[in-house]
């Protein structure tokens, strides 16, 4: 796996697993409908090599109108995906304004895609600064690694080892840090850690 920092591109020759296939198939439908997105959280660590599975994948997209939503909803349906929340488009659109709605392959609740609207500055940052991940013939947009690390650290807790001793978010952050530490933008990482008040966790991560 190679990371071209200047271009913001990662190149991977990994063997595709079931979770990757699910994500690739879903993203192809978004691409076909020209829906922009960024993948964040656990799957970013997994696709970059972390040895764990996940039952869901977090996807952020900017707000779209009802017509665009209908187009993507129907397109997903035509491609063997179902919305787990409701099969009524209007309901799904309304619920999407309050929380993530989930899509899975029909009859298989896991894995599923958490389809989230971008609603805050951190999510906007992840979207604006997203990087490219190429593997095989596939291209995925993922959260910038520095933000991914800081964000994962920020959602853990107060910073004592009791809280992090079995925390998957901490381990996800640690994996990305260990593999990419020579390539990470230290200034940007430091900025995000400060911004998200994750200084205590950061001390643990570096150990």
């Amino acid at each position, binding site marked *: 796996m190679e990371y071209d920092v200047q271009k913001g591109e990662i190149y991977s*020759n990994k063997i595709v*697993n079931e979770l990757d296939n699910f994500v690739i198939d879903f993203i192809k439908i978004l691409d076909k409908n020209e829906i922009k997105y960024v993948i964040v959280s656990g799957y970013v660590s997994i696709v970059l090599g972390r040895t764990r*599975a996940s039952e869901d994948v977090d996807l952020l997209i900017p707000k779209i109108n009802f017509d665009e939503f209908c187009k993507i909803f129907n397109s997903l349906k035509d491609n063997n995906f179902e919305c787990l929340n409701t099969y009524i488009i209007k309901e799904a659109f309304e619920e999407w304004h309050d929380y993530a709605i989930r899509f899975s392959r029909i*009859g*298989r609740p896991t894995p*599923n895609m958490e389809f989230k609207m971008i609603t805050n500055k951190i999510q906007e940052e992840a979207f604006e600064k997203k990087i490219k991940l190429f593997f095989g013939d596939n291209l995925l947009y993922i959260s910038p690694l520095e933000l991914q690390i800081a964000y994962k650290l920020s959602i853990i807790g107060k910073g004592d080892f009791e809280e992090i001793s079995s925390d998957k978010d901490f381990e996800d952050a640690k994996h990305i840090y260990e*593999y990419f530490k020579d390539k990470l933008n230290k200034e940007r990482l430091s900025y995000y850690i400060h911004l998200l008040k994750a200084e205590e966790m950061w001390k643990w991560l570096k150990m």
Partner: protein
Amino acid sequence: MVKNVNPKEIKVDFGEIKNDKMRNFRDRIWFIKYWAEFMKKNSDEVWSQGQKDLIDSQFKKADEFFEEMSKSEEGREKLDIIKYRKIKNI
């Protein structure tokens, strides 16, 4: 046959439990570092094969579980509850 034990008779060493957690945490961190180094030293094809085996087997198990559940009405009702809980993030 397990003897009935009065919980009051069991003395729990919480200090030892905390030490176990610390050891476990260190082991896990050690493995994450080890794995990152393993990835760097080996081709993507090598490390990702192990990851694929792990992830695919977990989804296979999940599929089998859902298939088994959907065979009965009671199971289908339970599946709906699982879906509902996930959706509302209860």
